[in-house]
């Protein structure tokens, strides 16, 4: 029923091809920008939904950069509801030169596997990591990027940790390559885990016994808030006060450090949206003004006022949808081409939702005034050119 009106909408758009093409191009640019900004924004807002609430991160209350001592570990383990506890210390190593930076953490292998069942690797490699004091395992993405194979020696220069001999060049034996258990986790297999045994033994005496942050695996996610509070309560008023939050909040806190950048991105999106609203709005009203006699003819032929209104609105919607699709297509294609893989700026559901709402608002704001005008046309006046 409605489909039969489509050719009418189409011919209205094709009436002035250059104008439609230019409007579409500028709409596409606007939505490219809005799509990209929203993708960045949702990264900053912490799109870490895949991290369940079954893991808590215990950090020093002052800041996560302050390592917590290892002696907290048995006390955390004794909190009811805690299933496994692991610890991880940021290593801050540089591979070959400063541009090759990727995160590495010194961990206890068995405890890592217990708390992060999402990482998958063959049993033999799993055992090798547990039993090799200077062992390391690398994520598949990382191993592919540098062409590492199991058995390779990976030299890392830590900008944080000095060894007892005063040097900062550490050598790690790659004993395994791990991957994520699903697509979401595979995309994050760009880090490296180092065996804490060699790390703690070889670093300067003053730093020994520091664990970093603790990751706590709880058996019932519903209880995680209570467990977090219980852990923090244990260390209250000690010199090692803790802050325990679920992993997602922890990641979010990390990204929150970028601060007001999110606000600025939204302000830009707003400015772009407003600009496009004016540009497209003018084009639409011009397009309708030129067609007044034609619209009058339509009405003579028996098209009702409401159908004429719908036709103009449909035209505006078609214009916005086409422009938005073109822009979003560009926004999907471009980032993977120009950005290195560690920047996860991808168009996701949030960005699509934002753009869908934007299209509807824009199409209505732009289409409604000329559509109303078209609806209210008096045939006699319009044909007479009054």
């Amino acid at each position, binding site marked *: 029923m409605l489909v039969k009106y489509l050719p009418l909408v189409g011919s209205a758009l094709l009436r002035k091809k*250059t*104008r439609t093409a*230019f*409007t579409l*191009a*500028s*709409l*596409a*640019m*606007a939505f*490219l*920008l809005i799509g*990209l*900004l929203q993708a960045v924004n949702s990264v900053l807002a912490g799109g870490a939904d895949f991290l369940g609430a079954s893991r808590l991160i215990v950090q*020093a*209350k*002052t*800041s996560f*950069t*302050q390592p917590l001592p290892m002696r907290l570990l048995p006390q955390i383990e004794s909190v009811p509801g805690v299933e496994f506890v692991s610890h991880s210390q940021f290593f*801050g190593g540089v591979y070959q030169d*400063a541009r090759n930076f990727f995160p590495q953490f010194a961990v206890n292998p068995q405890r890592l596997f217990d708390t992060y069942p999402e990482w998958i690797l063959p049993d033999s490699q799993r055992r090798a990591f547990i039993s090799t004091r200077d062992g390391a395992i690398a994520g598949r993405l990382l191993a592919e990027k540098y062409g590492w194979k199991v058995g390779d020696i990976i030299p890392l*220069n830590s*900008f*944080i940790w*000095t060894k007892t001999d*005063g040097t*900062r060049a550490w050598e790690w034996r790659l004993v395994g390559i791990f991957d994520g258990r699903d697509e979401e986790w595979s995309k994050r297999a760009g880090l490296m885990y180092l065996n804490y045994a060699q790390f703690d033994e070889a670093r300067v005496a*003053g730093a020994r016994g520091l664990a970093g942050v603790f990751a706590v695996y709880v058996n019932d996610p519903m209880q995680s808030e209570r467990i977090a509070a219980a852990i923090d309560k244990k260390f209250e*008023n*000690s*010199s*090692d*006060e803790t*802050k325990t939050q679920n992993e997602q909040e922890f990641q*979010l*806190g990390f990204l*929150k*450090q*970028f*601060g*007001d*950048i999110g*606000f*600025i991105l939204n*302000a*830009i999106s707003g*400015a*772009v949206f*407003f*600009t*496009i609203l*004016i*540009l497209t709005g*003018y*084009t639409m*009203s*011009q397009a309708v003004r030129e067609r007044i006699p034609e619209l009058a003819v339509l009405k003579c032929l028996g098209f009702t006022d409401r159908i004429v209104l719908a036709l103009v609105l449909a035209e505006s919607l078609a214009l916005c949808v086409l422009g938005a699709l073109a822009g979003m297509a560009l926004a999907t294609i471009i980032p993977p081409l120009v950005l290195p893989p560690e920047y996860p700026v991808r168009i996701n559901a949030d960005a699509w939702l934002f753009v869908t709402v934007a299209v509807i608002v824009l199409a209505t704001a732009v289409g409604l005034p000329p559509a109303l005008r078209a609806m209210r046309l008096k045939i006699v006046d319009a044909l007479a050119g009054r």
Partner: protein
Amino acid sequence: MSTLTQIREIVLMNLRSIPQRLGASFVIIIGIGGVVGVLVAMLSMSAGLSKTLTATGNPNRAIILRGGSNGELTSFLDRASATLIKHDPAIARADDSLPLASGELIVVTEVPRKGETGGANVSLRGVEPKAFPLRPELRLVEGRLFRPGLRELIVGDGAFHEFDGLDIGRRLKFRGSYWTVVGHFKTDDAHDSELWADLETTQSAFGRSGVSSVLVRLTSVDAFDSLKLRLTEDPQLNVDVLTEREFFSAQSASTTSTIRIITTVVTIIMAIGALFGALNTMYSAVSARTAEIGTLRAIGFGSAPVVASVMAEAMALSLIGGSLGAGIAYALFNGYSVSTLGGNFTQIAFNFAVTPALVMQGLVWALVIGFLGGLFPAVRAARLPVTEALRG
């Protein structure tokens, strides 16, 4: 009439008739205004950040860090090294004949951002008494300095405005003990985002010995090379020696370049979008004036004046749009204060700075878009066959 006179007449005539095409003209003005506004606002953010950073760093001062560390946070110098460094002859002496050098310890603390509960990382800098004569740019705007031995803090102006609970008299809890805010200071540079306290009090409260860095005043700018040579060659030390300016610009290089990349990408995309808008407007302006252009050609005006008139219209409108955008950016953002991630994985607070140079840059973009947006329609107008154009 000479071509020049023709151009003048026709351009003036065209500009005077703009009000008849007001609606279409607004499209260019708003479109370009949007581009220039966003461009100027973003550039002023990056200008504000680099202004804050380059203000930090006097060529007369040098900073010494552990060799290979990439910032103060990852640097560590033990007490013996710090003492050894301070007695280098290239370091100026104060009136009391002690070296003008301050061993400083950086620890990261969390302070809530205004209106939020989550913590933002803020640097707490433990300083020695000589930190103040070393940095004459530091002035206390309110309250008093901390007393050595007491858990008292002075708070930088930027941190005070960006974060919560830093008013004088308020207490902050770090590692199980309370610290009282006793003063506010202003340095107009990166230190404005920090909390300062006594070095030894900080060391004991955070269970640390040694310092992160040593800041020294040189006897003269030229003394830097000899200082660097002596300290890096000294077998008892493993240090990097940098001028303060070198150090601070390297610290935030990644933040600055990120902002620059975002600005460029956003501006280019917006400019392309606005260009199509401008083309649309100018084509329709030309088509509305077809009969008029035909008449002008018929009575002997050349094609150059017609091109000039269309271009002049596009560029005049762009200039208006550009000025409008820059004006709005200035009104909304000049002096607007924000904070983001700086060196040491801590916050750096800074103000947007809309400078005349940025406004000029914005206007240049506006004119370029106007030029391109006018060019093709102008050529089309000039090429119209007179007979056809006269028919309208």
